[in-house]
């Protein structure tokens, strides 16, 4: 008698073990991602809509590109948001990571001056300001190109990113291209150290600090400037024109962009009306998804979400002053998605 009970218990336990994964399969999946604050508003909006439609919850925390990639390389998250591809400090991951462009934004120079004047900047002047060579708003160099406005007699307080950041990377890449001084002293870096000024975490941090401090200057994604009603600097492009950052000028910049062998972050405007510091932002995932005990469904859900993001998800960017990926880049992104595998099998095939 007792033996039969025990037997039935054992059977039922075995059955439970067999069917448990199936039960789990049916459960809602929650994807986690960390990284860049550059596309944070876009992602938050897009993922919100995605959750509404597909019931898959996606947690994205804006901690900075560097921190995101670090978390991904330690395989504790599903994806990382980043604004740079070439990673300093993660050489072993170069071939393991796949970068998918998600949208286009612009790094803008914001400042806190009364009456929000539109100040013009050349790359050299920006370089001088961030290197501490120009310390006052009424510096002759600045006044020379801003004859139409009255610059206040204020010291300049530089605000930079404290964390390893894609925004910084793009900003420094742009300055390196146009300023000899910057190239020699700083180069292309995702973190700026040993320079004068204040530091803040993430794009919101920089925007907040600039908003707070009179006479300060910083660099953020366009939408942060607009949302916080901060003035943006007009920056001289290759054609020598001072361009105000906006969706239009970014689009102009993207129009002239031709993809090289590999995707670069910074998009340098060829169009004379293009804003010079436009850039892609990416989501990085691991090429092989069967890591850290992840199941197939999670991997499939991730790819599914990414496919949606580069396709239908693009519409949510425009409202936040981001620019959608042009079709050729969307194609490139799709090709990148094809490379994601689970135990060697490409995952995109599983998705209708």
């Amino acid at each position, binding site marked *: 008698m007792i033996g039969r009970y025990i037997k039935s218990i054992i059977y039922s336990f075995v059955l439970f073990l067999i069917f448990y994964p199936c039960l789990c399969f049916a459960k809602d999946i929650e994807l986690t991602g960390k990284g860049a604050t550059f596309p944070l*508003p876009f992602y938050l909006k897009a993922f919100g809509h995605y959750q509404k439609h597909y019931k898959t919850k996606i947690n994205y925390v804006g901690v900075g590109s560097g921190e995101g990639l670090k978390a991904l390389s330690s395989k504790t998250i599903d994806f990382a948001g980043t604004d740079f591809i070439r990673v300093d400090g993660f050489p072993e991951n170069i071939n393991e990571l796949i970068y998918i462009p998600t949208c286009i934004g612009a790094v803008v120079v914001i400042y806190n001056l009364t009456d929000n004047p539109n100040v013009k900047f050349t790359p050299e002047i920006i370089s001088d300001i961030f290197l501490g060579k120009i310390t006052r708003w009424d510096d002759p160099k600045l006044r020379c190109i801003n004859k139409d406005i009255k610059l206040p007699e204020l010291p300049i307080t530089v605000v930079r990113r404290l964390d390893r950041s894609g925004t910084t990377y793009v900003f420094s890449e742009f300055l390196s291209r146009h300023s000899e001084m910057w190239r020699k002293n700083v180069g292309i870096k995702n973190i700026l150290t040993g320079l004068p000024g204040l530091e803040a975490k993430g794009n*919101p941090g920089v925007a*907040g600090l600039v908003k707070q401090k009179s006479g300060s200057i910083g660099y953020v994604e366009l*939408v942060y400037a607009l*949302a916080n009603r901060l003035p943006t600097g007009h920056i001289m492009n290759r054609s020598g024109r001072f361009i105000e950052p906006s969706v239009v000028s970014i689009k102009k910049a993207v129009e002239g962009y031709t993809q090289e062998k590999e995707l670069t972050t910074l998009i340098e405007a060829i169009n004379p009306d293009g804003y010079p510091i436009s850039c892609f932002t990416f989501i990085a995932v691991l090429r092989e998804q069967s890591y850290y005990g992840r199941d197939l469904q999670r991997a499939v859900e991730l790819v599914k979400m990414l496919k949606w993001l580069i396709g239908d998800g693009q519409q949510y960017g425009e409202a936040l002053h981001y620019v959608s990926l042009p079709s050729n880049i969307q194609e490139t992104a799709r090709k990148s998605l094809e490379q994601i595998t689970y135990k060697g099998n490409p995952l995109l095939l599983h998705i209708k």
Partner: protein
Amino acid sequence: MINIRNLSVGTRLGVGFGVLVATILFVVVMALMNMQFSIKRLSNIIENNNRKVAYANTIDHAVHIMNDAVNNILQSRSSQQWDLENIRLLTAQAMYDNALSEIEKLEQNEKGEKIIYSLKTLSAYIKQQITDITILHFEKRYALALKEYQHSYRPSIKHIQQLCQELVAYQDEASSVEYFNALKKYKMTLYVFCVLALCSFIFSIFTAIILTRSIKKPLEQAVDAAKKLSEGDYHITMDIKGNDEPGRLLMAMKELAEKLKKAKETEQQLYESQKMETLGRLAGGIAHDFNNMLSIILGNTQLIKMNASSFDEKTHKRCNAIENAVARASGFVKQLLVFSKKQPLVLEKANINKAITELYKLLQKMIGEDIEIKLNLDPMLPEVNIDVTQFNQVLLNLIVNARESMPEGGTITIWTHKEEVVVNNGNLGANRISGKYIVLSVKDTGIGIDRAIQDKIFEPFFTTKQNGTGLGLSVVYGIVKQHGGFIKLESEKGKGSVFHIYIPCVDRIIEAKSKEEQQESQGKNVLGTENILIIEDDEEIRNLIREMLSTQGYNTIVANDGLRGIEVFLKNKDDIDLVILDCIMPKMNGNKVFAEIRMHRQDIPVIFLTGNNPEKIRYSPDDDKNMIIVQKPCSLEMLSTKIREMLDSSYAFKKGPLDENTKIYKKGPSVFNLRA
């Protein structure tokens, strides 16, 4: 403890000033550093406070933005507006978090941390509320969203604002407390430094005093010593502690003083010996003349006695009294001669011990019963060359002296020993010579000799006794000197005196001649062998002169008046070498006789004898070099000397041959026939 006097003055001053400067520098540097530190601390406090307040304001500001953004969302129906307000919310949240984390870094106080903790929890809570409200709003459940906003979001925001105000207020309070603490500490350290400065000041003064004293003290000593030296006081006591410059100066001064002292002593000794020498010569001269006079007195007294044999007894008695007095005077003169070392020594090898023992028997009888004589003689004493008689005189005089110094009785101790004397004062110590000596010491327990008169007791006629002659110790001195020795005196007033007589061991006795030589020279009292004519009417004088000249080796021929004299002269005119001529004579006076002699011989020396009236002589030694006038009464000694002088000068005039041995000028064979 280190004796700083061992360091040179330069080093001392250097080290002293170095330490001083170092101390001052130390205090100044410490004070400056402390001030810097305090200022830094104060400014840190102020800065921290300012920063904290600024961050609290940022939080307040961020909350304000959040509230505004949420308000906007609730009022708006546009999704684009919502998106932008969302970003504002994000920014505000970032500001909030940033400020909170910064303030957390700065906060160290428990109360502050509590507030920060509350703010942190509220931050998370408010984020959740914002998410809830926005979701409700997006889902178009506007009423619910508004309700949520009013009932939980607004109170939370108000709570945060209140907390921020609290934080600011608390910060102000805490920082003022900290500021006062820091100020208190600053004042305290200021006080400490004041004390330190005072200490270093005292230390500096102390150092300065020590240094000054260490230099000044020996210099003062040196000045004192120099003053003493300049006043002629060579007894300098100096406290030489270190070998620094003043120390060396003192050392040099001490050496100088010692050298001066020695030189002075030597000078004194030299002076003493010279004084004694002079006194001796003086005494000797006087004694000699005195002796001559005595001999005339004695001679004449004897003549009177001879002539008076026919007279009465009275004259005889008086003559005897004169003779006695002359004998006493003669003894006195003898003693003087001994002092002046004119007494010839009769040296023989003798043992002093023996001499003392022999004399001792005699002494015991001579000296009173209340005086004891102790002998302590060195049996190994070598023999020395001494004049035993003289030596006995020395011993006797010393013992008499000792006895006289002990009127109440006492002990006289006599001892002998051998001693090696080293005289190291070079040429200055004229009266002492290094070498082996035998020492005779006579010690008494008498009244002693005052230090002031110690160097005078050997002078002749110096006496402290009422009826002393003052010659006893002079005689001792003379004899010892003649023996080539010296005397050392140790005496203390009231305790007695010791006389050490040093007699040299070797046969090195100054001016001493051997016994034989002495005897020989005594026998040979010959002054000349010339022929002398004496023309004198006074028979007594004529005989006296004649006797004297005969004993001195001269040949004499006499004449009792002028005519007779001319007669004798003419008979022997070529043989007579000198004429002694009385001035006043019967029949033919001296002037006539002299003229007669000069007629026959120009070169013959003539001695005019005259009484009280030399003006009666018509001739003068100024006109005639070969004549002199001698006034009567004259000593025979002087006459003899004059005769010799006259003869010698006449020989020198004639350039006669000189006999090397006798130093007497010879004038051919002495053929002298008396044709009186």
